[in-house]
């Protein structure tokens, strides 16, 4: 038989109907739902008198527009409150399990899926949210969909999809000191651009990727969409199985499941539509200087000069970005002063992210210029972090310690930047106004964000002792 890619195997196993000249009908094993992209879909079902086909494969939570302050208080914004209430009503009416604000399992949808063992190797998983690519870290085929497609999946448990192309991104070698998973994916996006992955499913492979922890793999897959890809995936291995064992919704016969999951790798000689090779030794801590995640540079470099861009589109974009970001070409990135620091989002709000940031801030004070906050990705992350005392370290340093949610990743709730404020953020999008109208965002890893909070400016974290076991720190 022809050697198959990991993607091919999952795709083929989920084909319900294939017809030349038409998109394929594929079966969806898990559907995650949140408050912002679902109300119109449920409304559509009601209007057409259609039921939810598989409420047992559908799971909901609220994460985008909820406050991260005291949960005992009602949501003040009446429109946000109505949207949250609508999700509660819809889940009740259509009998969908909901992890609501009182649930110990509530959190950002892409944090709780894996945490609960809803995300499993070999599954197809969708959500009305572009960062659904996160779940690919487990060797699942996971991608974001629009609200019409949410309605389609609710009604049919299937999705009409054109078969995407495949792109292999191979990262080889030992990660240099101070390089986080975030730096790997930011470097990749810097290289392929924000549309370099368009129409593709990326498989990340190679020694560097295998060496990543599950949480680090999620960070990498999470930002696949920022490179324009539909999905990102990593073949499951022992780390994947260990992570999943004992999770709430993990399969009852776990060993049998593992035996099947072990076949989920790309066969030797499998053909991809494209391939990119990256040497880990070339990687360094990254920071975005512009208004899309592809406008990124190593922390020890300078703000680029748009005049040096060959492509006229890239030049125009860079000019506009620098104007918006209020940056001058040639400025060393480490000279950029910051007003706010946000540690959170589905990219970097998991336990290891918080641990690495907490280690760095321990015994230090947040700069008096800076307002800094940590927003754990889920109630489970928050609970575990508090058990380890991380919240004390953050609070003693001057960070705010919040309830779980998307928060200032997109600023739909009250956590937003004021116009002109400059924020160093562990989230995934630095678009104009993303964190608040007129706000300026620099994307970085959690340790880079922690260091920026302390120094009040962007910092090269390699000057710190990071005690990072995953890195090859020179002794």
């Amino acid at each position, binding site marked *: 038989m022809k050697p198959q890619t990991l993607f091919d195997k999952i795709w083929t196993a989920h084909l319900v109907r294939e017809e030349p000249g038409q998109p394929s009908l594929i079966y969806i094993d898990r559907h995650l739902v949140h408050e*912002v992209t679902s109300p119109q879909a449920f409304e559509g079902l009601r209007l057409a008198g259609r039921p939810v086909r598989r409420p047992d494969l559908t799971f909901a939570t609220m994460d985008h527009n909820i406050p991260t302050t005291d949960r005992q208080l009602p949501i003040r914004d009446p429109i946000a409150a109505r949207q949250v209430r609508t999700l509660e009503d819809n889940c009740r009416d259509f009998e969908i399990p909901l992890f609501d604000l009182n649930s110990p399992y509530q959190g950002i949808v892409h944090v709780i899926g894996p945490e609960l063992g809803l995300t499993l190797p070999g599954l197809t998983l969708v959500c009305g949210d*572009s960062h659904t690519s996160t779940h690919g870290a487990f060797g699942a085929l996971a991608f974001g969909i629009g*609200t019409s497609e949410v309605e389609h999946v609710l009604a049919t448990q299937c999705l009409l999809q054109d078969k995407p192309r495949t792109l292999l991104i191979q990262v080889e070698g030992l990660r240099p000191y101070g390089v986080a998973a975030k730096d790997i994916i930011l470097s990749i996006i810097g290289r392929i651009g924000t549309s370099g992955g368009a129409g593709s499913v990326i498989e990340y492979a190679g020694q560097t990727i295998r060496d990543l922890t599950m949480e680090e793999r999620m960070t990498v897959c999470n930002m696949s969409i920022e490179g324009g890809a539909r999905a990102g995936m990593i073949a499951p291995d022992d780390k994947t199985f260990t992570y999943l064992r004992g999770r709430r919704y993990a399969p009852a016969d776990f060993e049998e499941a593992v035996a099947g999951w072990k076949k989920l790798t790309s066969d030797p000689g499998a053909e991809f539509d494209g391939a990119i090779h990256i040497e880990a030794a070339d990687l360094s801590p990254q920071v975005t200087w512009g208004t899309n995640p592809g406008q990124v540079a190593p922390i020890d470099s300078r703000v680029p000069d748009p005049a040096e861009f060959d492509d006229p589109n890239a030049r125009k974009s860079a000019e506009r970005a620098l104007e918006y970001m209020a940056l001058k070409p040639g400025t060393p990135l480490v000279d950029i002063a910051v007003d706010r620091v946000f540690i959170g989002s589905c990219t970097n709000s998991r336990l290891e992210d918080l641990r690495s940031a907490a280690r760095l801030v321990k015994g230090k004070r947040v700069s008096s210029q800076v307002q800094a906050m940590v927003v754990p990705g889920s109630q489970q992350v928050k609970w575990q972090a508090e058990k380890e005392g991380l919240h004390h370290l953050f609070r003693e340093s001057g960070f705010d310690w919040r309830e779980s949610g998307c928060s200032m990743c997109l600023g739909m709730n009250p956590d937003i930047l004021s116009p002109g404020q400059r924020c160093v953020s562990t989230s995934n999008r630095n678009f104009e*106004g993303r964190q608040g109208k007129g706000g300026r965002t620099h994307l970085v890893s959690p340790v880079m964000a922690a260091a920026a909070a302390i120094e009040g400016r962007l910092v090269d974290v390699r000057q710190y002792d990071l005690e990072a076991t995953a890195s090859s720190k020179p002794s």
Partner: protein
Amino acid sequence: MEPFEKVHGVVAPLDLPNVDTDQIIPKQFLKRIERTGFGRFLFYDWRFLDGKTLNPEFEMNQERYRGAGILVTRANFGCGSSREHAPWSLLDYGFRCIIAPSFADIFFNNCFKNGLLPVRLSEEQVEAIFQGVRKTAGFQMTVDLQKQQIKADGGMSYGFRVDPFRRRCLLNGWDDIGLTLRHEDLISQFESRSAPPLSPTSA
């Protein structure tokens, strides 16, 4: 969905690459639970100075583009978030067709589900349209999905291609869910043969 055959109208320019859905419709408007009424908020932070006054610097705001039904823009339009509020706001504002050298995947899909036609043309063709739009006030164009052809003022004429299935759905105004449910038997068959771990163990 309303069938789409052709659209004739004024063309408005948005001369930027990588326009993301956060710009098309900013997040503060995603809290609404309706599908309609988003047109007022289209390109909100660019169109308005303080939420009320139109920003005179934003090209689309010029009088000559009033009532435009077609938008011409640059590469990778609609990148970022999957929010379907983006096509909803474009449609509600009055656009029926977007022309660009390329589109982001999810946005591209979302357009078809709502009867908004995204047309891919080459960089050169898009550039020529921009020039036409700027040279002639009230520059108009007809986008014919049936013939897959664009005809514009000044004798401009381009062919374009739309995936045949999507084209058929748009021309007929078909609803995807209805189409899929015709294959309900296949879905049931799939469900009965698919093995665990399909079902979550504790619910």
